């Protein structure tokens, strides 16, 4: 993995990124940059293309057009595992824990190299590091539980923990609060705030706007695959463009 450098350029830069599925344009010429250490929120109505954008950045989907730069280097078209190994990790909206494996093992997977035959006891080291990460996300009491039996809140934290095993410098979080109740949201928000405090660059997709706005300094708003607004949480909350995107023309007019 590349050493953590003191980069002067942005952590992530998107240039006119476009993704089409047949006739449907899910992401339409999106460009923005995220600086190192920034915590950015990515919001927009359902179907706006947010997760697709994450998929394209992380290599799960190939771009139709445009380029993605991570710490100054092009990563467009690289396979997901290569991008993850460079320090760009992501979580999924629907967590798929590895069944039949304990929480510890689920975490340990992220700490392994791609060398197939293991004569150096990598697994042992990965498990040790997994224990540390489990502490950080608050799962240290669940280590031996089969991951599929975890309650929803813990699953979300497992997902973040798994991504953290990649030692990322940039973490894409896809709806980390989805399906969580008030208390659980606080717990996960705490984990995320910790990561931000330690200087990790974060981009967070969320619908729970109150919880999100407390974490982020900047918000990007997507609709129909395009960036329609960018600014501080206050700017976005007040923006009529954004209101219209969420509520539609009539709904926004009713509120005005």
């Amino acid at each position, binding site marked *: 993995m590349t050493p953590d450098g003191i980069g002067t350029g942005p952590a992530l830069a998107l240039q006119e990124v476009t993704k089409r599925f047949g006739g449907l344009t899910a992401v339409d010429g999106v460009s923005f940059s995220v600086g190192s250490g920034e915590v950015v929120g990515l919001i927009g109505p359902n179907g706006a293309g947010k997760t697709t954008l994450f998929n394209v950045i992380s290599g799960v989907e190939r771009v139709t057009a445009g380029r993605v730069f991570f710490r100054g280097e092009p990563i467009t078209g690289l396979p997901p595992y290569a991008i993850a190994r460079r320090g760009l990790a992501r979580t999924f909206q629907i967590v798929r824990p590895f069944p*039949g494996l304990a929480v510890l093992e689920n975490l340990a997977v992220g700490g392994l190299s791609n060398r197939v035959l293991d004569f150096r006891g990598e697994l042992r080291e990965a498990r040790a590091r997994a224990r540390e990460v489990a502490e950080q996300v608050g799962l240290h009491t669940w280590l031996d539980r089969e991951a599929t039996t975890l309650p929803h809140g813990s699953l979300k934290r497992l997902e973040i923990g798994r991504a953290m095993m990649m030692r990322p410098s940039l973490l894409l979080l896809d709806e980390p609060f989805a399906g969580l109740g008030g208390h659980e949201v606080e717990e996960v928000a705490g984990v995320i705030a910790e990561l931000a405090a330690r200087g990790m660059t974060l981009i967070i997709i969320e619908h729970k706007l109150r919880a999100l706005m407390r974490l982020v300094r900047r918000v990007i708003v997507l609709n129909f695959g395009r960036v329609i607004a960018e600014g501080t949480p206050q700017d976005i909350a007040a923006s009529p463009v954004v209101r219209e995107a969420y509520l539609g023309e009539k709904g926004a007019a009713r509120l005005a």
Partner: protein
Amino acid sequence: MSSPGADSGRKERLRPEALQPYAPLLLLPVVALLGWFGGQPLTITLIYGATWATYAVGYDMFSGFSGRVNLGYAMFPATAAYTSAVLSARFGVPPLLSVPAGVGGAVLLGAAVGALTLRIKGIYFALSTAIVPLALFQLTHVFGKFFGGEEGIWGVPPFFSDPRLDLLVVLAILGAAVAFSLWYVRSKAGLILRGIQGSDLTAQALGVDTFRFLFVSLLCSAGIGGAAGAYLVHFQMLVAPEILHIVTTLQIITFTQVGGPGTIVGPAVGSFLLVILNEYLRAWTDLRLFAYFAVLVLLLRFSPEGLLAPAARALARLPRRPAAGGRQGKAT
């Protein structure tokens, strides 16, 4: 209780706990003794038992862990068998060389098939692997003069005249296969294969080059099946195209299923049991096959996790698996 650092790691390796999963290997000398003193029919049955057990181990260490069902597994023992048979019977290559060459042939086929099919998901992978042995079967007939067509290849030179010595060899092959597979699945490769079974995409998001792990695992799987397949040819002194029938792979999958997929030891034991059962049923010539398949249907219906699964897992000390062959845990 593990702690980080290479030193304590080294200490752990020497502790008896680390060797416990390999305890089932102690059964092999017992089988050897049974075969040595039990009379020729038993010896021969055990040779087949050990051969099928090796096939099952080879199958399980890939499909049982990654969840990618290789419906064409028979292609590996078959290719090794034909390679060794052709080299030794037609070209006079000494068996000591033709058997490893056979294994090499199986591994090469594994590489080719893996390169083509491993990126395909779901049932298409199973279907495309199922096709390969069928196509190879056709080839043995199309190039009948070389591969012997319907009859196969006869006159393959044996290693020994005493089957008891063959039994020792196949048991050694089985032992090596089990030992390697147990080590492999308990190492990071096994963990990653299980992860891939859970979600290939998530594994990739965690930095795993899933294709590479699947590919190397498939090569190992091919080599194991190939070793047993190539050796058997020199015991039977012939190879016939029946080995390429879908039934062969089905048998292997069945033995694996009965023994408990994802346990390595279970499939091996399951194979011995079912091969012996098959022999025992030979007395009822007419009903035998029907009884065999009927028993199988009932086993699958009422014991889908595998008869021996809990015991086998305890023996091999592998963590609990999810429902074998199921879609559970794959989509939410």
